[in-house]
Every structure is written in C-alpha cells, then in structure tokens.
C-alpha cells in the first residue's frame, strides 16, 4: 500500500459515525425533518406544548448530534435531570419508542444507509434508562 492509500484506509476505517454521516451538515439537514415529525406526532407532542420552539430545536439538534456520535457533553446525569419533569408527566417507553421511530424515519428520508441508521439508533437507545429515570 502506498502511503496515501494507507492514510485513506486508516481514515475510512476509523471515521466516526458522525463523520460518515456528514458531520454538522448532516445534523443540520436532519434537525428540521426530525423535529417536525416529533411535533406532529399526537402520541408525544403534548410534552412539547408551550415550550419555546427555538430553544427546543437547539435541544433536538444536540440530541441528533449525540445520536450521530458527534461531539457532545451529555452525561447520564444530564439526561436524567433534563427529562425528570417529563417523567413526572408520564414519559415512558412508548414515548421513547416513538422518538426512536422518528429518528429512523428521518435518516431514511435522507437516504442514510441502513447499517448507519442502526448505529445511530444504538447510540440513542443507550440513553433510554437515563431518559426514563431508571
């Protein structure tokens, strides 16, 4: 292998999911589609009533960045604290499932290959217990 090829091989095999998906640009493309699905879903949109849309969109963006394996500073503790008031309002597995569904559908809409969708879903899935305060 030439040096150039070796470097390419290294980069490709070690690129994070976030980079493979297209980094920040991918998150930007996804956030409106994803958030629109979430807001339009009668199963979960009551959790978004009365909140400032702009701030909420920034949070959706942070969530997608994390799900895509991008740079983020979320900890399990933040997840718990951030969702505690929603758990009190009845947030449960069915709602988490709905969000996961929208995450998958958003990526499908953006023609993301299935195996990368599965990787992102696995990252998001790993936050389930923290989000639901268990």
């Amino acid at each position: 292998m030439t040096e150039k090829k070796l470097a390419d091989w290294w980069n490709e095999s070690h690129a994070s999911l976030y980079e493979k998906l297209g980094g920040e640009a991918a998150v930007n493309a996804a956030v409106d589609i994803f958030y629109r699905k979430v807001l339009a879903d009668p199963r979960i949109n009551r959790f978004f009533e009365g909140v400032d849309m702009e701030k909420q969109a920034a949070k959706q963006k942070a969530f997608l960045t994390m799900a895509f394996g991008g740079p983020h500073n979320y900890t399990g503790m933040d997840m718990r604290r951030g969702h505690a008031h929603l758990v009190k309002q009845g947030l449960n597995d069915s709602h988490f499932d709905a969000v996961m569904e929208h995450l998958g559908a958003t990526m499908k809409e953006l023609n993301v290959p299935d195996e990368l969708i599965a990787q992102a879903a696995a990252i998001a899935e790993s936050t389930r217990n923290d989000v639901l305060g268990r």
Partner: protein
Amino acid sequence: MTSITYGGNTYPLDKHQSVLDCLVGHGAPVPFSCRSGVCQTCLMRAVRGVPPEDSQRGLKDSLKLQNYFLACVCHPTDDLEAALPQEVVCSLPATVTALEPLNGEIMHVSLECHAPLEYRAGQFINLFRDPTLGRSYSLASVPGHDEHLHLHVRRLPQGRVSGWIHEELRAGQTVEIRGPSGDCFYVPGRPEQEMVLIGTGSGLAPLYGILRDALRRGHSGPIRLFHGSRNRAGLYLTGELRELARNHSNFEYVPCVSGEEPAPGLEGGRAHEIAFREIGDFKDKRLFLCGHPEMVSAAKKRAFLAGAAMKDIYADPFNVNAAP
C-alpha cells in the same frame, strides 16, 4: 499572536484554544453549555474584527450579518473584540421630531438620534421614560430611506410607557434610547424566495419596515402581508400599503378583521388563520411574525409543521411585561 479583548481586558489566544476556553480560563463570566457549537449558549458578538465563518455555523443569517459567533468553536486568525449579546447595545439621546396618531390607539413616533444609529428595519430599540423604566419598540423606518427612526406605539390601559408616550411626550423633547437589538429583519440574498409577513396591531411596525426594506433591495419573489385587527378602526397605513401594492406587482396586502363583518377589500378572520388558509405549503418560504405573543407562537409552530425551515422563520413576539 491572536488576542481577544473582552470586558476591557486583552488576552492572548493560545494556538488551538477557543475564544471560550481563553475567556473562561481567565475567569471571564461567559456562559456555555455544550462546548461543541450546538446549544448556542455561548453566543457572543464581535464588536471589532470579523469572526471566522466556522464559528457562525448554524446561526441565523441575520445574526451572522451582525458578527455574532459561537465562542466555543471560534478559532480566530485575527484579533477580535467580543461582547455578550446584552452588552452590545449602546445608549444614546434622541429628540422627538413628530407624534401623529395612526389610528385611535396607535401613535407614530419619529425620533432623531443625536449620533448616527446603525440598524436594520424591523429591529427594535428600548425607549426610556426614566433611567429605570424602558420598553421595546420596533423600528418601522428604513435606514438610508427614512431620515428619522419611526415607531408605532399602541397605547395599553394603564401602560406606564405607552400611556406616557401618548399623553405626555411632545415633539422637541429628548429621550434616551438603547439599541438596536433583535434579529427579525430582511437579509439580502435569495431575492426570488417567497415572503409571508403576518402581524397583529402594532406588530405592523417591524413588518412595514421589513417590507419596504425588501422592496428597496429589489426582492423579486412574491411578498404577502397579512395585517389583522379586531375591527376596521384598528387597521392603519392602509392607504400607504395599498399604494405599495399598486406599485409593486409582487406585493400583496391583505388587511383582516376578526371581530366584525369584513367590508369590501377586507378579509374576515384572524390574520394568521387567513394566511394559513390561503397558503397551504410553507416549504422554502421566508416568514416574518410580529405582534401578539400567542399569535406569534401559534403561527410559528404551524408554519414549521407546514414545511417552513426553522432558519426561515423570523419572529418578534411583543411580550408585554406585566411586572411592576
């Protein structure tokens, strides 16, 4: 070496260090949360120097144009002087040049600044009755076109500032203003994009500025303005707006009344509901929403669900502060 000036101090920026890390490292009170350019908590503005494009990713165009940037992902190659958004606004005296009622409850206020004020039509200033009592009013004037600043102030029952403007303020008097602030204004570029402007009551003020600014800058896409009030007496500038519509084939003016039978030339219903009835799809449209906070918030959500991109929605809810 690149340096960052903030709060009167200048700090050298280490290679690979972000503006946020540098400032926080020196104990400067800059807020932050994600440290990765996502949450926008560390939003700052360059008051001298130009921030790198990378540090403006994800910001609204109107913020980019004002040199706002995210400190946590900002690695400038030139010296910058930075300020937090709320520290940017300066205070200056302005003399009232005219006060004319636009209708029974809204007063046109014209102000001449003692120093030139750089602003965009649709931004707002804070007008002070005394040093501790000030309120926000949107700018209906267009810089470079209107000589003075124009405000449309609606009088509220027992309103401490609006009541004072209506009853006691006189031409020739000098007041203190601070500003401008706000990012609800026309951004040049994409002149063919459709624009929808929806406002209630004195929410017409910023829209009147934005509309004329867009037309003057040669916006060629369709522009529709929906202005609503309960009754006909609450509408204003109808003559001027009809004239603009006559002179610009891409501009349509839709006055709406929700509390009485519409007369010829008026639509019956709430402005935003009529807009949503006439425009089903908001994909790729630029939207401006001003006035009643509940209207703004409801319309924002509806437009977003109808396909508008978040970055294409510009809004100024006229939150009325009921606190003493």
